[in-house]
């Protein structure tokens, strides 16, 4: 059995497909012969152009789900499509909040398992096998489904490079939400958007991240200033996000963002496996840590064994002096 049809769950920000959506469409073209997308939102139909450009020939339009969290209604709409005799061989989900919620709900509706934390897809015996980093990315585990499709894969951002196919606008087909009243009750009452200036964390060429080694929240200003001087973005370890020093949107790692900048600078970050998995793919890594045994040094191209309270202010001065 060849891999014929693949669906990609398409997500948007500000009305455009997210970068990971385009990455998944590109990879779907690599491993399958027909690529289709599932989208939701008031103007999902307007995505026919941009999704078509990356190879989707049909967009299944779930429509506006209102103020509820999309996990329940979108999973129900996709399950109805699959059960309506339209089943693809695989469905690719981005490893985002909504992507995971939808994949989990759908898995139960279809009684199919989900493979999560996928960073690669390969063909194997006419089916799809997936690659997963284990132990902080030191090992790569390959897994596959043993039963009938569709195979559900939840894929980490930045696993593939997005390339347009130059395809025409996709056809739009309605994918109505069946009755899910009893579980469809989690309503968003207010959205809080944290202000950020400068380039986006997952798109910046330079990322400067701070961890618990900064000592206290006020010292995060050093990270922000350095990031600004380098025209980069400021990131963080989970430890300081959980401590409330910086918003979650700054988090790099397993549960946060995956970044692959030209330069990643880890300041006062130990280099736990869950942090490494989000930044190990960076082209160049600089680490500043006072403990020469810190695991972060095992991935550093340049490691400075030193105190962030001394090195960072000196670095900021030196860069300012260069102008």
């Amino acid at each position, binding site marked *: 059995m060849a891999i014929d049809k693949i669906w990609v769950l398409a997500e948007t920000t500000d009305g455009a497909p997210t970068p990971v959506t385009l990455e998944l469409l590109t990879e779907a073209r690599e491993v399958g012969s027909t690529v289709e997308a599932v989208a939701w939102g008031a103007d999902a139909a307007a995505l026919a152009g941009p999704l078509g450009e990356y190879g989707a020939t049909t967009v299944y339009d779930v429509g506006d789900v209102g103020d509820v*969290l999309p996990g329940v209604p979108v999973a129900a709409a996709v399950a109805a499509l699959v059960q309506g005799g339209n089943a693809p061989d695989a469905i690719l989900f981005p490893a985002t909040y909504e992507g995971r919620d939808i994949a989990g709900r759908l898995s139960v509706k279809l009684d199919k398992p989900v493979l*999560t934390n996928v960073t690669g897809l390969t063909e194997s015996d006419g089916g799809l096998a997936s690659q997963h980093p284990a132990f902080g990315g030191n090992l790569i585990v390959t897994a596959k489904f043993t039963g009938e499709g569709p195979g559900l894969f939840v894929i980490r951002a930045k696993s593939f490079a997005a390339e347009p196919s130059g395809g025409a606008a996709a056809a739009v087909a309605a994918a109505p939400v069946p009755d899910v009243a009893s579980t469809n009750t*989690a309503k968003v009452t207010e959205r809080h958007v944290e202000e950020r200036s400068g380039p986006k964390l997952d798109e910046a060429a330079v990322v400067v991240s701070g961890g618990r080694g900064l000592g206290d929240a006020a010292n995060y200003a050093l990270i922000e200033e350095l990031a600004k001087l380098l025209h980069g973005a400021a990131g963080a370890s989970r430890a300081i996000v959980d401590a409330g020093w910086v918003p979650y949107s700054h988090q790099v790692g397993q549960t946060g963002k995956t970044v692959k900048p030209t*330069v990643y600078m880890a300041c006062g970050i130990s280099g736990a496996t869950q942090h490494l998995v989000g930044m190990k793919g960076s082209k160049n890594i600089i680490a500043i840590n006072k403990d020469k045994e810190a695991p972060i040094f095992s991935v550093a191209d340049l490691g400075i064994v030193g105190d962030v309270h001394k*090195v960072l202010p000196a*670095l900021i001065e030196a860069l300012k002096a260069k102008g």
Partner: protein
Amino acid sequence: MNVVVCVKQIPDPAAPGALKPDTHTLDRSGKLIMDDSDNYGVEMALQLAGGEGDEVTLVSMAPGGETSGLRTGLAMGAAKAILISDDALAGSDALGTAKVLAAAIARANPDLVVMATESTDGYTGTLPVQVAELMGLPSVTFAKAIAVDGSSVKVERQTEAGYDEVVVPLPALVTVTAGVVEPRYPSFKGIMAAKSKPVDNLTVADLGIDASQVGAAGAGQEITDVSPAEERAGGEIVVDEGDGAQRVVAFLEQLKVV
């Protein structure tokens, strides 16, 4: 209010992990501890259900009748625990585990189910939602704050851009992040009391689940290969003698970043 908290018992992450060479599944032999990720759920539940008539029940699926991790949660203050332990469960995938947990949780008839967003050793991040779907419950994932307000819960849910305020009527399932609350340390009194708190031991048959649905028999996925990842070439590690900043500047110049 009845709150159920799922507690995963895992090998100590501080000890180097290993995959079993034959099945490539995580080696779970040896003593297990409560996953740190679940500390936050236990604490949150104890704070939400601290009133008269409120009760916190722990639910765990673990091999070999393991209760060490559950005792930690009981020592923190949970009233009782349900443990599902059965040889038939070895090799379960996330969906199989979710089926077992859902059936066990239902026995406690909870108003609220609390789980961690993801475990330290499995980190699928989809298992809690599978449990919610199996139980027919609404769910809110990635909670960084939870408050109960009469017959509903109000959750601050992390998002890409910041956070959303989400309201969901009870009964519901919520997954928490490590930022949701500061967990307590069990007191000596708590540790002593935990020794005599009830742990209900269940098998797959007790839950009325067909053994072919769970464990290796029911797992719809298999690991076909494990290989070392491409290693990063070793870098230069220097001790700062007052020249650390200059070394960084020189490195950035060489990369033409400055």
